[in-house]
């Protein structure tokens, strides 16, 4: 997995484990929870964009499927939450495969357009047929594992960041495996990849499905933590926000997804003091960051670090 990644992972685990001890109350932890949920979505999107070079404008659709399917199964059918979360991920991956098969046969931006349409369709469906319609519904049970119910903020915080860490390790493993090399190869030269006998359509579909699984897991975690969901949390704005996290953090490194998600989640909290001006400051910060960070924060920092070290191996 690389020394850089291992060190970063250890630091992350220490930070997550330590945070509840240095903060009072649950406000910071709640911010942390939403950061973690967003980070999951962003990691999936990062793998999709950074390695397969595809753009999705429909992650909110999978995020919504995760939240709704898991909630409905646990409320209406009385399924244990853990089970309904897994079912939700299965439904989301099926939907992703169905969408990707026709979309990925086409070249260029079609996945972006197709996912945009898909996300909007899911939102219409949630509005029309989702329980509670546009008003949404509440009283969703918390996640229970081995007889322990995650109702406190701290327990949710730990569990969600456990998922993030697992998701990170999983995707780092993939990227550093044969599969990951194939994906990077596709990004490098599609012609050569085909000539090497790589099944690029199948690989792209798989990555897309993977990104959908991450998003749906995040959606399910969201639903069982907040215990209330409505379609407005799963619309195009969220898809765009997810894209923003990834681009801001840097698409070429999965850590970029995590960093971008944390920044995008914390930023509005930091800007509360600006009251209504926050929209302006927020827009300004986004514009400037994109203009001047370009490759994204994480790749930029790695580059800097490498230069400090004297230009040895820059790649984590």
């Amino acid at each position: 997995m690389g020394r850089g990644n291992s060190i970063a992972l250890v630091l992350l685990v220490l930070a997550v484990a330590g945070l509840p001890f240095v903060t009072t109350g649950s406000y910071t932890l709640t911010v942390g929870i939403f950061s973690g949920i967003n980070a999951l979505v962003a990691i999936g999107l990062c793998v999709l964009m950074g390695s397969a070079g595809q753009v999705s404008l429909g992650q909110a659709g999978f995020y919504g499927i995760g939240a709704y399917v898991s909630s409905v199964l646990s409320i209406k059918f009385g399924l244990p939450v853990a089970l309904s979360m897994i079912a939700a991920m299965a439904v989301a991956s099926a939907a992703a495969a169905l969408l990707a098969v026709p979309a990925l046969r086409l070249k260029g931006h079609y996945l972006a357009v197709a996912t945009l349409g898909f996300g909007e369709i899911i939102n219409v469906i949630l509005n029309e047929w989702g329980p509670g319609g546009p008003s949404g519904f509440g009283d969703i049970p918390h996640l229970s594992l081995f007889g322990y119910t995650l109702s406190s903020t701290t327990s949710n915080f730990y569990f969600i960041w456990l998922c993030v860490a697992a998701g990170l390790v999983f995707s780092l493993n993939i990227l550093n495996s044969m599969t990951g090399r194939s994906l990077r190869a596709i990004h490098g030269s599609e012609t050569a990849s085909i000539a090497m006998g790589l099944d690029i359509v199948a690989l792209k579909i798989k990555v897309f499905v993977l990104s959908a699984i991450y998003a749906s897991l995040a959606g399910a975690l969201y639903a069982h933590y907040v215990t209330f969901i409505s379609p407005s949390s799963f619309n195009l704005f969220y898809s765009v926000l997810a894209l923003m996290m990834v681009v801001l953090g840097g698409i070429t490194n999965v850590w970029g997804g995590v960093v971008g998600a944390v920044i995008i989640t914390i930023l509005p909290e930091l800007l509360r003091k600006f009251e209504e001006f926050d929209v302006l400051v927020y827009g300004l910060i986004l514009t400037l960051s994109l203009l001047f960070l370009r490759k994204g924060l994480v790749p930029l920092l790695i580059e800097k670090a490498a230069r400090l070290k004297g230009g040895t191996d820059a790649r984590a």
Partner: protein
Amino acid sequence: MLELKGISKGFGGVKALSLVSLSVEAGSVSALIGPNGAGKSTLLNAISGIDPPDEGEVIFSGERVNRLSPMAIARRGLSRTFQHLELFGEMTVLENIMVGRNARTKAGFLAAGLRLPSGLREERESLSSSEEILDYIKLGHHRDDLASNLPIGEQRVLEIGRALATGPKLLLLDEPAAGLNMRETRDLGELIKRIRTEKGITILLVEHDMDLVMRISDAITVLNFGEVIARGTPLEIQKDPLVIAAYLGDEAA
């Protein structure tokens, strides 16, 4: 090994290939030559399925493959290099070669993500065989350099190495000596010969460097304006008046 029957290919009215037939003996080094625009690269693309022919049949190891996708053709043991290098520039030399092995591996996302034993085993196999190939093509000292940082000559060799990693029965080389100096060309010729004799891989190459072609080929086919105008051993081709005319222009005929 490879049999072409009546291959034709047009690009919007322009006939790039017409009724090209050709056969490549197993275990031979065959060359395809011809002046610029003769349709050599078009023919390689037609064989490897990247730009399938309009008409005709491509028969590889006794199987008709001209309706198959390039991926499927590659998996049947046909590998190639490109005239305009198509290396994975942002990956290291070793990684480039490992990608060549990837099509032969089975482990999927789950095995990779969870580092299951099956995935790790394949990973180790892939690594060791790739390192072997790296030594075979004598690029071991560039193992961890980015492919795009290599000089052209070594990039060409790396492409051959990557193609070897897929474990081909037939290797198509598209102008492997383009941009190489004398010494590099000589080494390349040696490498191609070794691949044929030591690994028993059949080779079909398109090349402009006549010295190289004449030195290593068993059989030569000459294309001009999309048609086969001659075929034979290097000695026969050197004497063929049609070939001389094609290369030197009409006045010589």
